[in-house]
């Protein structure tokens, strides 16, 4: 990750009425008047988060070393390489693929991928006739054990708004032009179920080993916005 504490220009000006707002925040929602009373908190997220962390440390509620350890896990121990191994196994082992499509959670646990945001994972298969795409229109739900944390675009307004009303347009932007005859299925993760796309195995990869196949599977193909290309190099996407 970026070691810098710097925040992109444009976010610095943002002021928040966090403090006063929280008093009335649950339901019914806040009035704007309440929300803009307390603007004493620093506008820079670096400072605000540092301040919050200091308070929680003083209160004995968090250990900074524990925060470091958890951040390290998110950065290095979970991520789309896990999902790529699931896909490569499914491509090379028909019995595993059957189990994966029947019960994604259990089949992923066979490869020791399980955990938060993955208590129930439904795997949907892309074929020549059906193309699946996953989204969370309300927030950012995503199968963490196999894909890690979602990229910014997945959580962004353009993707969340358009994936459901214009999935073919979104796919085109990702360089994925689908034939009219293909059925597009969009899965909106509104409940506890998390979705994972088993992409189509590209032609011309019959000679590749499971490990080599895992190296060509991209994150985007497991969200369903892209296809796996036979020539794709491992790029961490």
């Amino acid at each position, binding site marked *: *990750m*970026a070691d*810098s*504490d710097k925040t992109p220009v444009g976010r610095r000006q943002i002021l*928040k009425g*966090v*403090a*006063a707002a*929280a008093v009335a*925040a*649950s*339901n019914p*929602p*806040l009035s*704007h008047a309440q929300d803009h009373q307390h603007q*004493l908190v620093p506008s820079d997220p670096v400072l605000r988060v540092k301040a*919050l*962390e*200091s308070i*929680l440390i*003083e*209160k004995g*509620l*968090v*250990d900074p070393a*524990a*925060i470091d*350890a*958890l*951040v390290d*896990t*998110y950065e290095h121990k979970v*991520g789309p390489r896990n999902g790529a191994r699931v896909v490569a196994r499914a491509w090379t082992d028909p019995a595993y693929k059957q189990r994966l499509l029947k019960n994604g959670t259990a089949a992923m646990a066979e490869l020791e991928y*399980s*955990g938060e945001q993955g208590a*129930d994972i439904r795997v949907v298969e892309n074929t020549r006739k059906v193309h699946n795409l996953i989204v969370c*229109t*309300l927030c*950012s739900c995503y199968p963490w054990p196999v894909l890690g*944390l979602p*990229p910014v675009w997945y959580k*962004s*307004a*353009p993707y*969340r*708004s*358009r994936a459901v*009303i214009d999935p073919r347009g979104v796919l085109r*932007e*990702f360089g994925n032009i689908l034939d009219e005859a293909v*059925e*597009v*299925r*969009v899965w*909106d993760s*509104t*409940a506890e*179920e998390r979705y994972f796309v088993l992409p189509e195995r590209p032609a011309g990869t019959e000679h590749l080993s499971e490990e080599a196949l895992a190296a060509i599977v991209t994150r985007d193909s497991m969200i369903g916005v892209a296809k796996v290309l036979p020539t794709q190099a491992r*790029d961490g*996407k």
Partner: protein
Amino acid sequence: MNSVHDMGGMQGFGPVLREENEPVFHARWEGRVLAMRRILGAIGKIKPGGFRPLLESLPPAEYLKNSYFENWYSALARQLIQSGIVTPEEIASGKSARRPVQPTITLKPEEAAALPFRVSQGVPKAQSAPRFRIGQRVRARNINPFGHTRLPRYVRGRLGIVEEERGIQPFPDTNVYGRGVNAQHVYSVRFSARELWGDQASPRDALYVDLWDAYLDAA
């Protein structure tokens, strides 16, 4: 709540902007916000379910302008104040107002590092019988609750077909506010793209949305 977080079907946000070789976190503070929230949840200081209603009740302009983790910070700070863990003055000053009365047990680094691999246990017992079966036609209710709901606006009032069962889950509309778990059956409901968006949509395409029993009527 009909706010800007319920984005499905909105227009005008422009193209999806991607970043090559995107880091997991773009700044050190982002990961720390996430980790603090997870640790406080794991030691029972905040309720995980209480977070999303706070995100959704951020002022719409702020929600859209801020980055994802800036919104997380705002919601977390609100939740900590609501839960009585910190005061607004402490948030503003960055200093604890008083020493803890009793030492708190928090997570050790090795326990925190293992949090992402912890699988939540136990399925709640349904408090109502399933009203729908696979293959049944249903209509999503036209409800507009003032608080948290997982029934997106774009399916309200629309006809769909129950495709799969999704098990039994706490009903978010009441559970997140501590007003009852109200666990009930959840279904994957298929809506044709044309039912939702009219003739401009492909006649082949479909949306699958996971909906709680109480969001649906037989059609």
